[in-house]
């Protein structure tokens, strides 16, 4: 097994990987940009290497700098996390050339899956069911019009190099096609440096269900059950669960076998995910393969009892899979909520800034994979994912109740988050009945929020609280000192005082005095 590995990522996933390392007695190396010196993953790692300025191209996407950091610290392997360089075959190859193990599939597997167009061509040969469309990038508006005519509207435009909904457009009719193609291509160019876009028939109201697979270097491949990821906004997943209540054991076996066929066609090893669109008649179509650990991997860990990150490290170190397909037993139900720094009451605007107060849930069946802490300033340079709240229970209703309970406990102050959105989702009758598809969340957001019956009873208490607070110093100032007889039980100055403030706080002033200010 490795003695030391480098984690080429940030935020909650870097923390997640550091935790796996510590459990296995492996030393971890964190990397960070200028704005991430105070980030949680840097605080938790054994070794830390500075990469450069905030823009990802000069830090987390910069292959030479990351390889230098690995060489300087003597890291034997690199875990790429998700996003950033995780699906870069170029990076995987550069690691191999530098004699460093890339914790993931081979660059050749990534190349065959990395381009969605190439993946479709390979899958067609392997007899995998997929949605009708083009196998090559669109060269002109005329070609797009002709293909759309043959598959029928509505159609989807998608970036070949894409993911996360970038460069993706739904087109309802021929009139809208030219404009949508242009904007999808320019968005793809900006996001991925590659403007190639292809076209697919739109399956209406599909579910998005994906199958976790895992392979070793010896050629064994298993599937670890599906995840339901239909709750999405702008093609960005918001809530995931395992298992999917729509999938029965027979369908799970068929999907799993197709997923293994997909993985075998790419000589795949390590963790991977095969995404499917599922229609109302339980037909499923291959969508794409993600050649990395997924954000939502915890729900699979909960229902299978397998630590996927640790398994990634073992397989990358050359060990065979310790478990056979027939030994995989699903138990209970798990659900994950993605906590984003964005304002659901204001069109989901990003909301970076200082977390002035953080009260976190715990208790039975609750797991939090988080990259934030109280006093930390959420930078505006990266993805707004702050943390994942994961619940496990014996069945789906228990998981929903646990999450609703945990949401009452959860408070993130100072910035806006989408916590309130989850309260609405979890209470929605369609969601509770498991009737979800990729349009569920958009429909929910069109509905007016249901007023809480308790609001009227609480209003006088709110008015009183506001008046009592008005007698206290405003947020962000020094804690109350026995003013008016009310004193803070937990008086403290945040250790991160004045990061970005104009007036130096106690710590910074002390640091300046000592001549160690940064």
């Amino acid at each position: 097994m490795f003695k030391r590995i480098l984690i080429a990522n940030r935020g909650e996933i870097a923390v997640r990987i550091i935790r796996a390392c510590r459990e296995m007695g492996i030393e971890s190396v964190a990397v960070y940009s200028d704005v991430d010196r105070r980030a949680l993953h840097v605080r938790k790692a054994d070794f830390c290497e500075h990469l450069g300025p905030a823009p990802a191209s000069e830090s987390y996407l910069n292959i030479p700098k990351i390889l230098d950091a690995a060489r300087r610290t003597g890291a034997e392997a690199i875990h790429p996390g998700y996003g950033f360089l995780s699906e870069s075959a170029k990076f995987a190859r550069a690691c191999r050339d530098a004699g460093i193990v890339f914790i993931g599939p081979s660059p050749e597997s990534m190349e065959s899956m990395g381009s969605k167009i190439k993946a479709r061509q390979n899958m067609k040969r392997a007899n995998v069911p997929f949605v009708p469309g083009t196998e090559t990038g669109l060269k002109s508006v005329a070609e797009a019009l002709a293909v759309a005519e043959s598959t029928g509207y509505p159609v989807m435009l998608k970036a070949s190099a894409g993911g996360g909904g970038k460069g993706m457009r739904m087109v309802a009719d021929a009139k809208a096609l030219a404009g949508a193609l242009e904007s999808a291509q320019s968005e793809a160019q900006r996001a991925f440096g590659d403007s190639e876009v292809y076209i697919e028939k739109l399956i209406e109201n599909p579910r998005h269900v994906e199958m976790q697979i895992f392979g070793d270097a010896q050629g064994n491949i298993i599937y670890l059950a599906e995840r339901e990821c239909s709750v999405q906004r702008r093609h960005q997943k918001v809530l995931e669960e395992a298992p999917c209540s729509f999938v029965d054991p027979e369908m799970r076996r068929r999907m799993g076998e197709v997923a293994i066929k997909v993985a075998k066609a790419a000589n795949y090893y390590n963790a991977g995910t095969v995404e499917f669109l599922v229609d109302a008649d339980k037909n499923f179509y291959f969508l794409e393969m993600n050649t990395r650990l997924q954000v939502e991997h915890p729900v699979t860990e909960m229902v299978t009892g397998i630590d996927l990150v640790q398994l990634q490290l073992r397989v990358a170190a050359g060990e065979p899979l310790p478990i056979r397909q027939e030994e995989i037993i699903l138990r209970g139900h798990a659900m994950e909520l993605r906590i984003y720094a964005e304002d659901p009451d204001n069109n989901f605007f990003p909301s970076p800034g200082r977390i002035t107060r953080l009260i976190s849930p715990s208790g039975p069946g609750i797991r939090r994979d988080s990259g934030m802490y109280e006093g930390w300033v959420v930078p505006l340079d990266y993805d707004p994912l702050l943390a994942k709240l994961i619940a496990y229970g014996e069945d789906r209703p228990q998981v929903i109740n646990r999450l609703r309970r945990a949401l009452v406990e959860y408070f993130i102050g100072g910035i806006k988050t989408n916590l309130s959105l989850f309260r609405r989702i979890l209470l929605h009758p369609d969601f509770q009945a498991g009737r979800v598809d990729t349009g569920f969340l958009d429909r929910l957001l069109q509905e007016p929020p249901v007023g809480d019956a308790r609001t009227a009873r609480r209003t006088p208490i709110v008015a009183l609280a506001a008046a009592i607070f008005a007698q206290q110093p405003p947020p962000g100032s020094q804690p109350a000192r026995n003013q008016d007889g009310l004193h803070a039980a937990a008086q403290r100055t945040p250790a991160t005082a004045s990061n970005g403030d104009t007036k130096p706080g106690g710590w910074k002033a002390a640091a300046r005095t000592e001549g160690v200010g940064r």
Partner: protein
Amino acid sequence: MKYEVLIDGHLHQVELERADKGYECTVDGEPFVLDVVMTARDVLSIIHGGRNYEAKREYSLMGETHIIIGSERFAAEVRDPRSLRSRRAAAGAEAGPAKIIAPMPGKIVRVIAAEGDEVEVGQGLVVVEAMKMQNEIKSTKKGKVTKIAVHEASAVNAGDLLAIVE
């Protein structure tokens, strides 16, 4: 002490008097006896009639005070009737030009409206990019754009002036 408290647009008359463990108070004439402790900065534990409430306070970017109880968020504005400043603020907030302010830090990627344009409520003025997302900032007022305070590629902080619509 008397306060006028605006909760989500509804005005309440609040009277606070310090008492043994907390406060004896009235809201719109109705009496309340509260046991109140501050468990952390901006977090109050309020027990009323045996029922427990945890109230948190925070400021929005626009300087609005929010009170959060349980999972609900309320916009709250407290006016001390003796304070001249708050009376003035109460009088003339809505009239006059609308300042369009950046809701978050980011970079201006596009300026949609030009000075002199007539715009409707909800019409896009500029596009700000933050956290890999592009966000159209819309006019909150129908009228004429009298000032565009930013240009493409400029960086803005939360609360910075973007435009003025009169």
